[in-house]
C-alpha cells in the first residue's frame, strides 16, 4: 500500500494519497509516489525547505478563484501549447524538427529523492494520457515554443520532458499564471552534444496558491542551457532547478528575478553539479521584496574532485528590501573538491541608495518614481538574456509591480 508510506498524513497529504489511489500506477509512478511519501509535503524541518514550508501552506487541497493574469503578447510565429490543469492542448501543425508526444504510463524520475514535490508530479502524471508531454527537438527550431499553464481547480500536475538532439536548438517561453490551489509542474531537459535551449519563464499566482516549478537539466558535451525566470510568487512559490553538467565544455546560465508583494512568498532554489571538466555556470539572481513579502534564494554549486576540474562558475544573488518588514533569506553554497577551478559567489541584501534617490529627485523625478526606476533597472539586469520577444514585457510587468508598492 503506497498510502501507508505517509506517516501522520495531513489532510492535504491524505487527499493526495486518495487521488493517487484512484489511478492505476505503473512501477515508475509507484516509485515516485513512494519517494514523495518518504517526506510528504516538504516542511521546515527539512534543511532544503526550512524557509519554504509547503506542508504548512497547503493544509488541504482547495480550489481558488483565479486572478486575472498578465497578458503577454506572443510573437505571431509562436508554437502555442496550453495546459488547463488537467490536459495539454497541442497545435495540429508543428514546424519541422519539433515532435510533441502525449505520454501515458510510467517513466522513471531519477531525482525523485532529492526533489519530493517533483516526484509528486511524476507520480500523478501519465495516467490520463493528457498531462505528460515529451517534446523532441531535432533541428534548430526558429519558432519559439510557448507553454501556458493556467487553471486546475484544487490541484494540478504536469510533466514535460524535453529531448534536444545533437546540435539542435529551441527557444521556450513558459507562462505560469496560477488558477489552482496547489500545483506541481515538473520539466526535464536532456541536451545532447552541442544542443542548446533558451528558456524564459514567467510565474504569477494569487495569494491563495502554492506553486512548485521543478526543473532538471542534463547537459552533454558543449551543450548550452540558458534560463531566465521572473517570478511574482504566491502564497508560496518554489522554483527549483537542478542542473548537471555531464559532458566537457557545457555551459549554463541560470538567471532569475523574484518579486514579492505583501503576503507573497517567492523561492528560487538551484543546484548545479559540475560533473565534467571545463564547464561554465553563470548565475545571477535578483530580488525585490515589499513589507510583508518573503524572498528566498538557495544556490549550490557542487564541483567534485577530478571530474570537476577547470570549472568556471559564478553565483551572484542581490536583493532589495523595498520596505521595512520585507524578509529575504539567502543561502549561497559552493562545495568545491577540485583544485583547479574558478568559482566565485556574491550575496547582498540592502536598500536603495539614498544618494541616488536624492540625485534623481533633484532632477525632478518624484521619490516613488525614482524608487521604481532604480528598482526596475536593478531587476532588469537578471532578465537581459530572456527571449527578445518577451523581454520588454517582463520588464513592463516588473514596472507595474513596483508602481503598486508603497515604497518608504
Amino acid at each position: 500500500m503506497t498510502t501507508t508510506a505517509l506517516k501522520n498524513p495531513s489532510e492535504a497529504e491524505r487527499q493526495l494519497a486518495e487521488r493517487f489511489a484512484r489511478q492505476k500506477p505503473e512501477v515508475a509512478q509507484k516509485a515516485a509516489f513512494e519517494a514523495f511519501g518518504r517526506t510528504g509535503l516538504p516542511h521546515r524541518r527539512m534543511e532544503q525547505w526550512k524557509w519554504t514550508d509547503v506542508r504548512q501552506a497547503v493544509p488541504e487541497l482547495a480550489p481558488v478563484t483565479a486572478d486575472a493574469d498578465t497578458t503577454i503578447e506572443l510573437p505571431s510565429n509562436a508554437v502555442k501549447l496550453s495546459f488547463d490543469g488537467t490536459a495539454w492542448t497541442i497545435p495540429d501543425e508543428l514546424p519541422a524538427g519539433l515532435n510533441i508526444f502525449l505520454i501515458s504510463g510510467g517513466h522513471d524520475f531519477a531525482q525523485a529523492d532529492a526533489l519530493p514535490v517533483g516526484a509528486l508530479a511524476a507520480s500523478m502524471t501519465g495516467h490520463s494520457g493528457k498531462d505528460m508531454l515529451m517534446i523532441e527537438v531535432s533541428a534548430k527550431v526558429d519558432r519559439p515554443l510557448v507553454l501556458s499553464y493556467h487553471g486546475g481547480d484544487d490541484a494540478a500536475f504536469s510533466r514535460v520532458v524535453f529531448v534536444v538532439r545533437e546540435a539542435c536548438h529551441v527557444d521556450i517561453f513558459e507562462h505560469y499564471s496560477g488558477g489552482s490551489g496547489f500545483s506541481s509542474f515538473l520539466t526535464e531537459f536532456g541536451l545532447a552534444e552541442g544542443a542548446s535551449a533558451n528558456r524564459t519563464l514567467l510565474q504569477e499566482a494569487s495569494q491563495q496558491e502554492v506553486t512548485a516549478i521543478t526543473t532538471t537539466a542534463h547537459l552533454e558535451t558543449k551543450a548550452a542551457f540558458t534560463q531566465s525566470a521572473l517570478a511574482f510568487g504566491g502564497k508560496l512559490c518554489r522554483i527549483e532547478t537542478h542542473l548537471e553538467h555531464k559532458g566537457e565544455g557545457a555551459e549554463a546560465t541560470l538567471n532569475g528575478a523574484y518579486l514579492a508583494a505583501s503576503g507573497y512568498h517567492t523561492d528560487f532554489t538551484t543546484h548545479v553539479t559540475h560533473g565534467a571538466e571545463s564547464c561554465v555556470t553563470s548565475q545571477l539572481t535578483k530580488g525585490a521584496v515589499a513589507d510583508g513579502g518573503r524572498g528566498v534564494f538557495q544556490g549550490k554549486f557542487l564541483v567534485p574532485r577530478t571530474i570537476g576540474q577547470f570549472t568556471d562558475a559564478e553565483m551572484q544573488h542581490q536583493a532589495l528590501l523595498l520596505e521595512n518588514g520585507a524578509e529575504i533569506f539567502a543561502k549561497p553554497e559552493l562545495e568545491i573538491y577540485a583544485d583547479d577551478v574558478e568559482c566565485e559567489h556574491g550575496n547582498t541584501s540592502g536598500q536603495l541608495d539614498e544618494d541616488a534617490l536624492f540625485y534623481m529627485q533633484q532632477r525632478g523625478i518624484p521619490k516613488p518614481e525614482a524608487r521604481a526606476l532604480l528598482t526596475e533597472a536593478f531587476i532588469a539586469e537578471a532578465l537581459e538574456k530572456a527571449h527578445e520577444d518577451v523581454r520588454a514585457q517582463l520588464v513592463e510587468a516588473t514596472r507595474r509591480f513596483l508602481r503598486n508598492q508603497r515604497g518608504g
Partner: protein
Amino acid sequence: MLKLDNLTADVGEGDGRKTILNGLSLEVPAGEVHAIMGPNGAGKSTLSYVLTGRDGYEATSGTATLNGDDLLDMEPDERAAAGLFLSFQYPVEIPGVPVMTFVRAAINAQRKTRGEDEISAPDFIKKAREIGQKLNIDADMLKRPVNVGFSGGEKKRLEIFQMMMMEPRFAILDETDSGLDIDALKTVADGVNALRSEDRGMLVITHYQRLLDHIKPDRVHVLAKGRIVKSGGPELALQLEKEGYDGILGEVA
C-alpha cells in the same frame, strides 16, 4: 529671483546635529551670476543641499524663495520643477539607467508637475545630440548608465549636459571645477555661459578663482561660519586669491 533671508540650517541628527548655516542672507537677481567662495567647512555645500531639500539638511529659521515661491516648503522634485537645478560636487551613479532614459524621464517629470506636455522623442533626441556635441559628449556615453564608470571630468560634463537639457530658471554649480583639466574647464564654462540669460540666475560655488576666469560673476560673496561676511564685485575673487581667506576674514572680523 533667488532670495535667502536670515537662513539658518542644521545638519545631522541627534547628538551629531550642528548648526551650519547661521543667518545667511543673499539675493541673486534674474540675469546675474553670483559666486560664493569660502574656506572648507564654511557651509558652501550645505547651502546647496538645504536649497535643494536633501534629507538631513533642515532649515530651522529664515526664508528661501525662488521668484517668490517658498522653496523650503517643497519636495526636492517640486523644487526642480520650479526651476532649481544643482550641479553636484560629486555626481551620483545610477546603475542600469541609461543617461538618455534618465534625462528624458526627469524632463517629463518636471513638465508633468508643471502641467505641461511631454517632450516629443524626436525633439528630445535632436536637442541631446546638439548639446552633446557642444560638450564633447558622444552618443555612446549617452547610452551608458548615468555616471557609472565615468571619469571625474565626464561626470562634470554630464552635469552641465543635464543643465542645458533642462534649462532651469536657477542653477547652483557646486564646485563644478573640481576634477576638471584646463580643456574640460573651458568646455564646461562655455556651456554655462551659453545658458546665461536675462531670466536666469546662477550661483557658482567654488574654492578657486580659476573657474571665475571663465565664468565671470556679477557679484562675489564670501561665506564663512554659515553666513555671508563680505560681498563685492569680481575683484573680490582676485583679492581672495592674493590674500587668502585669512586676510579677508581677519579684515572683517
